[in-house]
C-alpha cells in the first residue's frame, strides 16, 4: 500500500482544544484526558497535540521538531540546519517507553534562529525563510520530517490513540496557555507518524476532522505559491491555505474564514452592510480556489489564540463551551466536560462561522 | 320599472329583446305576434320545402328564449293602432297593452298587383311566411306545373325549394333579368343560365296580363298553363301604425341611426323601416335579415337606456341556387372592375377611392373583407388595390394594419 504523500488519504477524526484568555498556563494532562471519551472517533492510526506557550525559555527561537528514520539522516540534517541557522539547542524530545506506541522514529527538537547573513543573501523575511526550509527538508531530505516549526509552541504526534500519544510525549510535564488535540481515523493508510495531526507550519497548527471535496482544487492552487503538499492530507492543505491567507496575504482570521468557508452568494447578496457585502464578494472573487467544500471542523492554533471553524454546511460536529477565562472546543461535548465539568454556554457554531479566541494582549 | 312592448315577432324583435337584455335585466317585455309561431327564420322556408331543414330547426332561437329573456308573447293578435298620448298599443281584439318604450318591428307584407282574374285561380300562394310555405307544400305534386310570378330573391328561392317536388316551374318577371334588384345584366345571365340548367324556365321582360283559372295570359301574348301559382312580386313595409300615430314614414318608417322614429319613445326596426344606407349615404328600406337584427338590437339597447348607433348598414345579400353562390353588397356606382374566374365573375364598384359595392358570382371566399371595405369606407389607397380586385384576402392590408386587426381582442 502507498503511504501518505504517495496517495491522498481521507479520514474522519476527533478534535479538542482549550485556551486560557488570561494566558494561564495549563499542563497537557487535561487535554490528553479530553480525548478519552472520544476514543471511538480514532482508530489508533494517529494522535497528536499542539501546545502554545510551552517553551518560555526559548520563546524567541524557532522550535523545530523532527522525525528521523536513522542517525545518519539526523547527522546530515543537523549539518544542513547549521548552515542556515544558529542552532541554540538540540536534544531528543523526552518520551515514555510504552507498549501502545511502537516503531518510533528518532525524535529531536532544535531551537534555532536563521542566520542573518543567509536572510540577507536570499532577501527573505525570517518566517518565509523558515517556512521554505521546512518545505525543503520535507520534500528533499529523505528520512527527515519537520513536524513542528513555530516559536514557543510545539507539536507532538505519533501513530497510536491520542491518549497514549499524550502520555508517550509526557505532556503532563509541559505547560501552555492553549492546547489542541487530535485523534485520527484514516480510512485507508498504514499510518505513519508524519501523517498524524496537528499539522503545522511556523506557529500555525491545524487539527481537522473531515474530508474536503475541494482538496485538489485547493492543493493545485496553493502549490503555485511555493507550498508542497507532500502528505496529500486535508489538514496539510488547510494549514498552508491559512498560512498563505493570514501570513502571506495579510488577511485577518475572520477574513481567512470568509475565504475558506465563504458564505453562499445568496447570503452575501442579502447583507445590508455595504462594506461587509463588498468584502465577502471580493474575497470570494479573489480567492475562489481556496474555498473549501466538503465536511470539516478545524481548530487552528496560532501564536496567542485559537480559531475554530466548520464547513459552511456544518457537516461535522463541533461544540464550544466556556468557563471563566477558558474556552473549550471539541468534536463532542463529552470531551469538554472532561476538561471542565462545569463548562457553560455550550453551543454549536454555525457552518462557516469562525470562533476566534485570543489571549489578552501581553499575557502570553 | 320600464315596460317594453315590441310589435312583431321576427328577427328585428329578437334583436330588440337581446338588445334590451344586453343593457338591463329589469322590466317586462311584451311581444305582439301576429303569427302563431315562436320566432323562426323566414328565409328558411324555401330550405324547408327543399328538405334541408325542418320546422324545429327553423326556430331562430332556442327553446325557452322568451322565458329566459322575461318576455310575454301575445300570439295571433295584430296591433291595430298606437295611442301615443296614452302610451298604449291597441290590439285587434280591442285590448290594449301599455308601454313605456315601444319598438315597431312589424315587418312587411307581400305586394300583390291587381291582376285581372286572379280570383279565378284555385291554387295561389304567397311566399313570405311559414304558413305560406306549409300551404304551398300541400299543393305540391310530382306533376304540378308551377308558375312563379317574380324572379327576385323570394321567387327564385321558392323555385329552388320546390324544384324537386313538382313537374315544372316557370318564372316570369316584368324585368328583363333575374334578380334585377341585386344583379346587373351580365351576372344575371350567368345565374339564369345556371337556373335553366337546373330545370327552371323563364319568361322575362314579360308580365301577366290576366289570369283565367289555370292559365296565365301574358302581355307578350304567350299563354302559360299552370297548376300552382306563386306570387312573389314584391313586398311593402308595414308602416301604417306609425303613420297613423303621426310618425314620419316614407316607403318605410323613417328612423335614425339609433332606430328612433320621430315619435317619443317609439322605435322601429327591420323590414318596416327606412334607415341609413352607409354605401350610398341615403335613407332606404334595407329589408334584409342581418339589418333587421342589428336595427332591432340597436333599438333595444337604446330603449333600455344604453347607447347604440347603427350607422354602417348596407344592402347585402348572400344567396345560392343549386350550388351556385353569389354575393352582392352596396351600390353599383362608380367605376367597375371585373375579374373573370373559372367559377364565375367578380365585379367591384369603386367611386371616390372607396369600394362602393360588389357582385360576386361563384367566388365568394372571404367576401366579408370586401364588405368591410364598404362598411368601413376604407380609402383604397391605403391597401393593395390591384390585389383587391383579384382576390379578397387580408394580404391587401398593410402589415401594420394586419397587426392591429389580428393582434388584439375584437
Amino acid at each position, binding site marked *: 500500500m502507498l503511504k501518505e504523500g504517495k496517495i491522498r488519504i481521507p479520514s474522519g477524526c476527533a478534535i479538542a482544544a482549550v485556551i486560557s484568555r488570561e494566558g494561564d498556563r495549563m499542563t497537557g494532562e487535561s487535554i490528553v484526558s479530553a480525548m478519552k471519551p472520544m476514543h471511538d472517533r480514532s482508530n489508533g492510526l494517529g494522535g497528536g497535540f499542539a501546545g502554545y506557550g510551552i517553551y518560555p525559555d526559548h520563546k524567541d527561537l524557532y522550535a523545530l521538531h523532527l522525525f528521523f528514520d536513522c542517525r545518519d539522516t539526523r547527522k546530515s540534517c543537523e549539518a544542513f540546519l547549521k548552515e542556515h541557522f544558529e542552532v541554540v539547542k538540540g536534544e531528543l524530545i523526552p518520551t515514555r517507553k510504552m507498549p501502545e506506541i511502537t516503531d518510533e522514529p528518532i525524535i529531536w527538537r532544535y531551537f534555532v534562529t536563521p542566520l542573518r547573513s543567509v536572510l540577507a543573501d536570499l532577501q527573505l523575511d525570517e518566517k518565509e525563510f523558515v517556512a521554505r526550509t521546512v518545505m525543503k527538508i520535507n520534500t528533499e531530505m529523505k528520512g527527515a520530517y519537520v513536524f513542528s516549526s513555530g516559536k514557543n509552541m510545539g507539536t507532538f504526534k505519533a501513530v497510536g490513540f491520542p491518549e497514549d500519544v499524550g502520555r508517550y510525549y509526557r505532556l503532563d510535564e509541559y505547560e501552555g496557555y492553549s492546547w489542541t488535540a487530535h485523534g485520527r481515523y484514516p480510512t485507508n493508510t498504514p499510518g505513519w507518524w508524519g501523517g498524524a495531526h496537528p499539522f503545522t507550519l511556523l506557529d500555525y497548527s491545524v487539527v481537522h476532522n473531515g474530508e474536503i471535496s475541494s482538496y485538489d482544487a485547493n492543493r493545485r492552487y496553493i502549490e503555485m505559491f511555493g507550498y508542497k503538499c507532500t502528505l496529500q492530507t486535508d489538514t496539510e492543505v488547510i494549514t498552508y491555505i491559512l498560512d498563505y491567507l493570514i501570513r502571506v496575504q495579510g488577511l485577518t482570521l475572520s477574513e481567512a474564514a470568509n475565504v475558506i468557508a465563504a458564505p453562499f452568494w445568496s447570503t452575501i447578496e442579502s447583507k445590508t452592510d455595504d462594506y461587509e457585502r463588498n468584502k465577502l464578494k471580493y474575497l470570494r472573487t479573489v480567492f475562489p480556489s481556496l474555498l473549501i467544500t466538503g465536511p470539516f471542523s478545524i481548530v487552528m492554533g496560532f501564536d496567542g489564540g485559537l480559531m475554530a471553524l466548520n464547513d459552511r454546511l456544518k457537516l461535522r460536529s463541533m461544540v464550544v463551551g466556556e468557563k471563566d477565562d477558558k474556552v473549550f472546543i471539541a468534536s463532542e461535548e463529552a470531551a469538554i466536560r472532561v476538561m471542565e465539568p462545569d463548562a457553560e454556554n455550550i453551543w454549536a457554531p454555525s457552518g462557516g462561522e469562525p470562533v476566534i479566541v485570543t489571549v489578552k494582549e501581553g499575557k502570553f | 320599472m320600464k315596460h317594453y312592448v315590441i310589435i312583431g315577432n321576427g328577427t328585428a324583435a*329578437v*334583436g330588440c329583446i337581446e338588445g334590451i337584455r344586453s343593457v338591463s335585466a329589469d322590466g317586462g317585455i311584451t311581444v305582439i305576434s301576429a303569427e302563431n309561431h315562436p320566432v323562426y*327564420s323566414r*328565409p*328558411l322556408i324555401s*330550405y324547408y320545402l327543399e328538405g*334541408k*331543414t325542418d320546422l324545429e*330547426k*327553423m*326556430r*331562430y*332561437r332556442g327553446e325557452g328564449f322568451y322565458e329566459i329573456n322575461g318576455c310575454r308573447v301575445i300570439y295571433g293578435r295584430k296591433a291595430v293602432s298606437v295611442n301615443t298620448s296614452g302610451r298604449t298599443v291597441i290590439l285587434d281584439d280591442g285590448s290594449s297593452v301599455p308601454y313605456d318604450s315601444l319598438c315597431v318591428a312589424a315587418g312587411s307584407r307581400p305586394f300583390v298587383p291587381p291582376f285581372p282574374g286572379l280570383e279565378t285561380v284555385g291554387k295561389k300562394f304567397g311566399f313570405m311566411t311559414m304558413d305560406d310555405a306549409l300551404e304551398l307544400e300541400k299543393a305540391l305534386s310530382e306533376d304540378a306545373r308551377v308558375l312563379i310570378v317574380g324572379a327576385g330573391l323570394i321567387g327564385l328561392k321558392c323555385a329552388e325549394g320546390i324544384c324537386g317536388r313538382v313537374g315544372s316551374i316557370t318564372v316570369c318577371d316584368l324585368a328583363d333579368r333575374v334578380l334585377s334588384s341585386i344583379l346587373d345584366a351580365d351576372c344575371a345571365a350567368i345565374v339564369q343560365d345556371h337556373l335553366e340548367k337546373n330545370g327552371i324556365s323563364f319568361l322575362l321582360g314579360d308580365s301577366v296580363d290576366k289570369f283565367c283559372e289555370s292559365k296565365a295570359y301574358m302581355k307578350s301574348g304567350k299563354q302559360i298553363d299552370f297548376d300552382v301559382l306563386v306570387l312573389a312580386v314584391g313586398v311593402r313595409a308595414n308602416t301604417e301604425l306609425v303613420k297613423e300615430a303621426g310618425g314620419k314614414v316614407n316607403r318605410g318608417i323613417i328612423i335614425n341611426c339609433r332606430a328612433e322614429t320621430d315619435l317619443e319613445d317609439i322605435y322601429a326596426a327591420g323590414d318596416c323601416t327606412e334607415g341609413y344606407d352607409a354605401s350610398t349615404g341615403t335613407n332606404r328600406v334595407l329589408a334584409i*335579415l*342581418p339589418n333587421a*337584427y*342589428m336595427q332591432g*338590437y340597436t333599438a333595444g339597447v337604446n330603449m333600455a337606456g344604453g347607447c347604440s348607433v347603427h350607422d354602417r348598414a348596407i344592402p*347585402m*345579400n*348572400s*344567396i*345560392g341556387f343549386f*350550388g351556385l*353562390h353569389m*354575393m352582392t*353588397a352596396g351600390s353599383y356606382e362608380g367605376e367597375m372592375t371585373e375579374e373573370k374566374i373559372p367559377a364565375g365573375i367578380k365585379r367591384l364598384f369603386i367611386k371616390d377611392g372607396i369600394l362602393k359595392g360588389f357582385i360576386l358570382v361563384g367566388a*365568394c*371566399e*372571404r*367576401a*366579408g*373583407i370586401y*364588405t*368591410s371595405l364598404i*362598411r*368601413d369606407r376604407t380609402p383604397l389607397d391605403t391597401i393593395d388595390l390591384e390585389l383587391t380586385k383579384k382576390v*379578397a*384576402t*387580408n*394580404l391587401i392590408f398593410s*402589415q401594420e394594419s*394586419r*397587426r*392591429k*386587426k*389580428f*393582434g*388584439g*381582442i*375584437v
Partner: protein
Amino acid sequence: MKRVYVNEEWCLGCRLCEYNCAFANSGLGDMVLALKDRKIFPRIHVEGNDSITFAVSCRHCTDPICQKSCIAGAISKADGVVRIDRSKCVGCLTCVLVCPYGALSPGEDGIMQKCELCLENACGAPACVTGCPNKAIVYEERSDPE
C-alpha cells in the same frame, strides 16, 4: 379569455395548421386515416404570397357580426366562444359575406363550420397552435390591440 392569435412575422406558410385543424375536427384518431387522399376543409386558412404568410381563423369577436347576421340563428356565442350549430345552418354563406376577417368557410358538405378552439374535439386545445412549429399561432390572453 384566451384566443388564437397569429403572428405573421413567424408564419412559415407550411400550412401544418390547416392539416392539424382538419385532423383535429375529423373525429378520427389517425391523421393518415383522416386526411389521406382527401381534400381538406380546415377552419383555419393560410393566406399569403411568396414573402408573407399568415393563418386566419375565427377571432371570436366580442360583438360577432356573423352571429347577428345568421339567417338561421345557427351561430351563437357563449363563454367567449362563437359556435355554429351545423344542424341549423343551411349554407347560405351570409356569415362569409359579413365576416370582416374572411375567417369563415364552409365544410365539405357546404354547411358552415368554424373554429371553435378545439374545445370540444379530441384535441382539447387549438390544434393549429399546438402543431405550429414556429409559435406563429398562439393561444393566449391579450388585452387591447397593441
